[in-house]
């Protein structure tokens, strides 16, 4: 009923005349708060309504998207959790509203464009940071929230492939149960914690117990580097074990300043949010020129090290209005 009503209203404006768009994330995280800020800033700039929804899992994402359709928004930018299996549903959504993807793409759907970067490449950059931190090679352990979501898989694969000196191939997948042994670097294991933070720390502790010679630890989700740091600190192993992080958790950034984290790979979630809304608004106005040939608007990830962390941090704070 709601779907039908929406179809008839075309890309109709809401009663107050303002266009409305939504950003749907993969979960709840400070990372997404930055994205939200970007989206909202764009909303203010364009004078449109922007709603940001943070679902707790894939099912929740589905129902949140359904709710948006029922409510009637003009366009949605969604971060795919499971691009392959969500494809059918995304196509359904695309029939009833303008749909683009951000952060994590779902290339085999009718989404109009993707705003973000390839997590495989970001992972690769993380791998490069590890190589810098332990140039003589050694054992590496990866920590991540969960591997079920596509961006996590690709990010992890990027790190592994880079460390093992393989050709770039974003579709490769090493099972998480096994160690990946390369000439110089060995990825011993990938531990998941299902977003349970005490468990994330316990995983680090257990790996410190099991692998006394571990040379570097990589935290693939935003909260993993702080968990690694906390465990290292309590074990008295700061500096002894090198840490490479992802994303821009303040604890991670501070640790880069202090030297206890070698570096982190950051995306530009602010830009994802900001640009998604702008693209949606342009498309709503019928301006197809915003869609590039390959249907991807890419913002490459960046490596942040000690020398550029200050600049990055103050820029981030200014975007967040802090």
């Amino acid at each position, binding site marked *: 009923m709601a779907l039908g009503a929406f179809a008839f209203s075309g890309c109709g404006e809401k009663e107050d005349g303002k266009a409305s768009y939504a950003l749907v994330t993969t979960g709840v995280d400070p990372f997404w708060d930055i994205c939200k800020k970007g989206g909202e800033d764009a909303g203010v700039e364009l004078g449109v309504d922007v709603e940001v929804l943070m679902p707790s899992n894939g099912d929740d994402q589905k129902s949140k998207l359904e709710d948006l359709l029922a409510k009637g928004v003009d366009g949605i930018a969604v971060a795919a959790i499971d691009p392959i299996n969500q494809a059918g549903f995304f196509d359904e959504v695309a029939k009833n509203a303008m749909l683009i993807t951000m952060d994590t793409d779902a290339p085999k759907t009718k989404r109009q464009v993707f705003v973000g970067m390839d997590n495989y490449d970001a992972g690769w950059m993380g791998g490069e940071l590890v190589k810098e931190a332990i140039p003589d090679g050694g054992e590496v352990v990866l920590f991540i929230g969960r591997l079920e979501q596509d961006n996590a898989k690709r990010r992890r694969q990027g790190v592994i492939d880079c460390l093992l000196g393989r050709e770039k191939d974003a579709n490769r997948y090493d099972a998480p149960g096994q160690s990946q042994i390369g000439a110089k670097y060995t990825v011993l294991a990938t531990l998941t914690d299902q977003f349970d933070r005490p468990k994330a720390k316990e995983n680090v502790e257990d*790996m410190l117990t099991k692998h006394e010679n571990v040379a570097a630890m990589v935290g693939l989700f935003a909260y993993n580097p702080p968990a690694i740091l*906390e465990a290292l600190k309590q074990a008295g192993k700061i500096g002894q074990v090198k840490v490479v992080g992802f994303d821009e958790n303040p604890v991670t950034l*501070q640790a880069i300043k202090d030297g206890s984290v070698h570096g982190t790979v950051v995306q530009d979630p602010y830009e994802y949010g900001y640009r998604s809304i702008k693209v949606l608004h342009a498309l709503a106005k019928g301006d197809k020129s915003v869609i590039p040939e390959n249907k991807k608007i890419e913002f490459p990830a960046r490596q942040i090290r000690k020398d550029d962390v200050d600049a990055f941090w103050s820029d981030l704070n200014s975007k967040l209005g802090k």
Partner: protein
Amino acid sequence: MKKIKGILITMIVIYVATAILGENFLGGYNQGKLLERTGLYGLLAIGVAFVIITGGIDLSIGSVVCLVGCGVPWLVMRQGWSPGSAVAVAMVVALCVGLWHGFLITKLKLQPFVVTLCSLLIYRGATRGLAEDQSQGFGGEHEAFRQWGTEAIEVTHKFGIPYPFVILIVVAIIAWIFLNKTIWGRYLFALGNNEEAARLSGINTDRMVILSYVICSMLAALGGLLFILNGNSAQPSDFGNFYELYAIAAAVLGGCSLRGGEGTIVGVVIGTAVMQLLKNMINLVDWLKSHMEFLIVGIVLLVAVIADEIIKQRVRKLK
């Protein structure tokens, strides 16, 4: 002693097996970490054991952990409170939470499952609102305060007894005395077995039930406090998720019957240790994969419960 024999043997078997199969299991660092985790999770398990002994259940523990684990750093870091007053407020809130649960269950006769299920949702939702879904932690500050969750009494260079474990032992001793040496403990067991008979014997059963929920919530709060002091990072949307189930599982492993009237504190502590040992084992033994965690914990729990029931039935038949 008889009641905890099974779980004690289980613990020893897992301990020895991990020592043989795992790497560096017996090292001082790992042993210290095991004690630390037993301390943290054990507080929740002792709390829920009180409620289970009365025949009730508390599903809101994880959310109380979240409320306190996010609330205390929020008060300290965002609102500028002193750690002492933040902890005091957290404990008062936990006290009120327990009183509220007890009131709904005894006076309005609502089912504990329903009451605490609603609470599970409410406290988590409230915390998310309060913290605006932002990660909470102490950054690099309040090191002295955080020591309660991170420090240890040094024994050797590599091994120390972590404060959380010391706190657990103190709480366990008080709980043991309460349950075994005071009339209130006797009353709790009596009403857990047969509330009506206990009431007709002149016991103020409502008051005892309320007390058990208060104890449970306050220990959950203490646990939540130590978790955040130890880990320094809490996300309102998932901090403490499912911890009530870990606590209930540990209590059941330790010999608490969900029908009420049964349970020992020593058993609950050992039950918690078994859960932590299992998690540790899965990470330390090469051929156990981390995705098997729930599978293995579930199977061990089930086997323990089945074995316990068989032994009980055999004893009953002999009599």
